[in-house]
């Protein structure tokens, strides 16, 4: 009798799990079924977002997702509710999770474009899957230069690469901070180590020592690297990585009495850095970004974003907004299959709120539109623009 009961309960539990999982899956990529509620326009398609919505660098992914969703919301206001559907996929910023998520996204026939992936490591991992499925994708944030060297015809990038950002950061260090000694470290991620190498190459003999940390979110005690930085006598510390690790290192550096300046890349450009370090320690930290300040964004973007999400636009929110709008423009002009959309991306020249976009034949942004800015954290934990850095490469 007991055995029978246990078996019945177990069977019911398994059934519930299966039904729940099936329900969950269909929920995430079939919101509302075949949406033909649009008014005669090209409706019923999806543009997917793939990126970190949870995890230690989630803020960066969420900023982009909110820019993307704002663009779709505004489009649906003009063209009918649910005309274009939102389809968000969480990769946790992890290259190990990204491929599975990418397969899920491309299996939906309604998806004709992807805004993502924000991080270089996950872009590297999911790129082949998106390319094989022939889904055009625009990354609003991945900066590793090697992404466009794989011959992915469906890959596009809306920002400058670390080939621009790295030397720009180094130039800022040399021309503005003018230290004698620099310490460079990275978190061994595709993005972090790529950027750190680019900076090291440009700074040359100014770099007195280097080190590596664990991946973002995997380490909290940085006393060894702090010790190394202090004993190296460096007055500038460049870190290739994301804001959580960077913030913790900055905090522990300040606690150990180091008075130098920390410099980071776009992965550190987030209020999460000041949250991890404490506003007092974070103040004065310089970060570069192949993006213009959100305040420079044209139109009503800044106000619209604030009104929709009740927070200020973050890093790359404006670029994601533009990338999504490029897809939407393509849909407007009748490019409603992934093939036609990719052809459209080859020739489009679109002026959005953050920049004008035109893609080269490898998917990179046309060199005339590349830009890198320097920002500095102020005493209240917000990164303020300092200047645009002239690109020499």
């Amino acid at each position, binding site marked *: 009798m007991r055995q029978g009961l246990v078996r019945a309960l177990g069977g019911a539990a398994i059934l519930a799990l299966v039904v729940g999982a099936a329900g969950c899956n269909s929920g995430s990529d079939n919101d509302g079924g075949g949406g033909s509620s649009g008014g005669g326009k090209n409706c019923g398609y999806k543009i997917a977002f793939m990126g970190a919505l949870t995890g230690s660098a989630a803020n960066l992914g969420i900023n982009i997702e909110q820019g993307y969703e704002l663009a779709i919301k505004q489009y649906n206001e003009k063209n009918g509710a649910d005309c274009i559907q939102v389809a968000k996929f969480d990769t946790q910023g992890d290259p190990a999770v990204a491929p599975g998520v990418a397969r899920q996204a491309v299996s939906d026939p309604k998806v004709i474009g992807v805004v993502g992936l924000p991080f270089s490591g996950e872009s590297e991992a999911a790129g082949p899957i998106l390319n094989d499925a022939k889904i055009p994708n625009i990354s609003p944030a991945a900066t590793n230069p090697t992404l466009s060297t794989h011959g992915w015809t469906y890959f596009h990038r809306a920002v400058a690469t670390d080939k621009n950002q790295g030397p720009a950061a180094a130039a800022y260090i040399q021309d503005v901070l003018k230290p004698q000694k620099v310490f460079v470290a990275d978190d061994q991620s595709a993005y972090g180590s790529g950027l750190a190498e680019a900076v090291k190459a440009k700074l040359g003999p100014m770099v007195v020592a280097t*080190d590596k940390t*664990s991946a973002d979110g995997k*380490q*909290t*005690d940085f006393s*060894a690297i702090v010790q*190394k930085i202090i004993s190296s006598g460096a007055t500038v510390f460049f870190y290739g990585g994301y804001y959580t690790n960077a913030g913790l290192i900055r905090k522990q550096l300040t606690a150990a009495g180091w008075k130098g300046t920390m410099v980071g890349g776009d992965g550190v450009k987030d209020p999460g850095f000041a*949250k991890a370090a404490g506003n007092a320690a974070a103040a004065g930290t310089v970060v570069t970004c192949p993006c213009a300040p959100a305040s420079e964004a044209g139109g009503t973007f800044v106000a619209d974003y604030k009104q929709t999400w009740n927070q200020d636009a973050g890093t790359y929110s404006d670029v994601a907004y533009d990338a999504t709008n490029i897809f939407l423009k393509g849909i407007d002009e009748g490019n409603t299959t992934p093939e036609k959309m990719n052809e459209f991306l080859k020739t489009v020249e679109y002026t959005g709120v953050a920049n004008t976009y035109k893609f080269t034949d490898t998917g990179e942004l046309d060199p005339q539109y590349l830009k890198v800015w320097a920002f500095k954290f102020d005493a209240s934990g917000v990164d303020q623009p300092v200047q645009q850095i002239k690109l020499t490469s």
Partner: protein
Amino acid sequence: MHFDDLAHNWGPLTASGLAQGAIYALFALGYTLVYGVLRLINFAHSEVFMVGSYAALITWGFFGLDENSATPPTTEVIGYVVLGVLVAAAISGITALVVELVAYRPLRRHNAPPLAFLITAIGASLVISEAVGVATHRNQRGVPPLIQPADAFTIGNTHVTNLEILIILLTLVMMVGLDRFINRTRLGRGIRAVAQSPDTAALMGVNKDRVISLVFLIGGLMAGIAAVMYLFKIGTTRYDAGFSLGIAAFTAAVLGGIGNLRGAVVGGIIIGLFENYGSALFGSNYRNVVTFVVLIVILMFRPSGILGEALGRARA
């Protein structure tokens, strides 16, 4: 291999390593006590530590202190630190007791095989860390700057900070206190008796359940204190903060001789020192590699750990 780095920084690395080692030692006590008495590896102990750290932060939060507050005056700081330590120790102790009551006691009643204990321990660890993770959105939480690091004294190029001295002193005090407790009091004798032979101890009139709860409580209290020290040293905590520290602390317990209280201290200090030396020598990303290589080497030559003897044997 950066020998010059190691040689040049030997002093600061040693000071930092001793402080880190003291935290590991306090943390390792929980593992070693529970193993000595129950022959059980209490994986949930790392979450007991993490919960204690959050308890201290929430308490300070009630007073309006967060990572961006200004440092209060010294008299208030002493009050806050003492309060934080007491609350963290209490909450950690209670958490440890609850884990014992809910996860392990039912298994003991049913004479479950050791594997069941192991799996339950891992399960309890995951339940607590994931619950806290969901509640905190997996964000980290900063520590109010209560203790401003200042150099207490300088030897050569080594600046020994007030925080490092506080951690080491506190650990020494707790260790001496615990040693006295185990060796000189009636309750301590009960613990040693149950560690030697639970059934014989029961025959001699020792309340087994009470002793086991006491052991969990003591481990929890130590972990809570270690958690507050950790907060001051590292400056943040997160739902998974217990995990990597737990691995290092468990390694320290094994290294010193699992079941041996003094061994936990020796193990903790060795791990703390070698982590730092290893990072200087090979690079920070080799930290954990160095820790485990040290463990393997020592176990190869002395399988029962450095101090070897268990809790119940002749000397604790």
